[in-house]
């Protein structure tokens, strides 16, 4: 097995622990955060602060390196301009997120609970992603 796979597995494990500890795998807490006109639940705001804060510091430290540990180069997004796909995609994402209380990470972590509803969501989400690939014939990413 490639060493890259070990790093990716460890990263996935840590993120799942963070999502679970903070209760973000509970869709009611996510919907509660978006419920500004009801009983607002601030948890997600604290999670964002913790995640953005730690990642902002670590990102800057890691970016000083000339290369990552296991591969020769960093692969980071290069797009900078605002465009309509960004906004429309985020609107669609927000609609699905608000309706379900799930986004990709928490939904995948919740699969372990064996709940049928999260399984439906994940299958539909994978379908949506595959559908995008078919509709747009994405150029190969590097």
């Amino acid at each position, binding site marked *: 097995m490639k060493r890259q796979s070990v790093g990716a597995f460890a990263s996935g494990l840590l993120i799942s622990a963070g999502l679970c500890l903070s209760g973000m795998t509970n869709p009611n807490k996510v919907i509660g955060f978006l419920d500004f006109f009801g009983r607002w639940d*601030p948890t997600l705001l604290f999670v964002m602060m913790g995640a953005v804060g730690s990642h902002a510091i670590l990102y800057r430290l890691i970016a000083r390196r000339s290369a990552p540990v296991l591969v020769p180069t960093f692969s980071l997004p290069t797009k900078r301009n605002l465009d309509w796909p960004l906004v429309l995609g985020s609107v669609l994402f927000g609609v699905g997120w608000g309706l379900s209380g799930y986004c990709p990470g928490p939904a995948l972590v919740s699969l372990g609970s064996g709940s049928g509803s999260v399984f439906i969501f994940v299958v539909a989400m994978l379908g949506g992603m595959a559908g995008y690939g078919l509709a747009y014939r994405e150029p190969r990413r590097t």
Partner: protein
Amino acid sequence: MGTATVGLAGGALIGVGAALLLLLNGRLGAIGGIVAGLFQRSSGEWAWRAMFVLGLVFGGLLLVPFAPSSFVPSPTSGPVLFLAGVAVGFGARLGGGCTSGHGVCGVSRFSKRSIVATITFIVTGAVVVALVRIFGGAP
């Protein structure tokens, strides 16, 4: 522990997990993008993406017995969940990111695109939750 402590600690762990992927593999911990990449046949990229997803799923499996309250089902009905899933999957690709890709990784790099995307999906999500509240089936 209070909401703030638990949220900040869990969030920090998410940030560290994402940073680990950057340190080792040189990639941002953008979950939606990594999952979507499983549908692209780019040579040598598939295995680590699959292992990342497996790490998320396996982590959940391990943690369910210790934190059952974190794993309650969505209050939304099956057909609506299906539509929501399609919207999240398609939207994450069209918009180039999700809550982790834009919301955590992008915002912490001060990316203008990610800040706009994050505000957009939070505002849209809030509008949808408010509409659901008004038109019945309040969560």
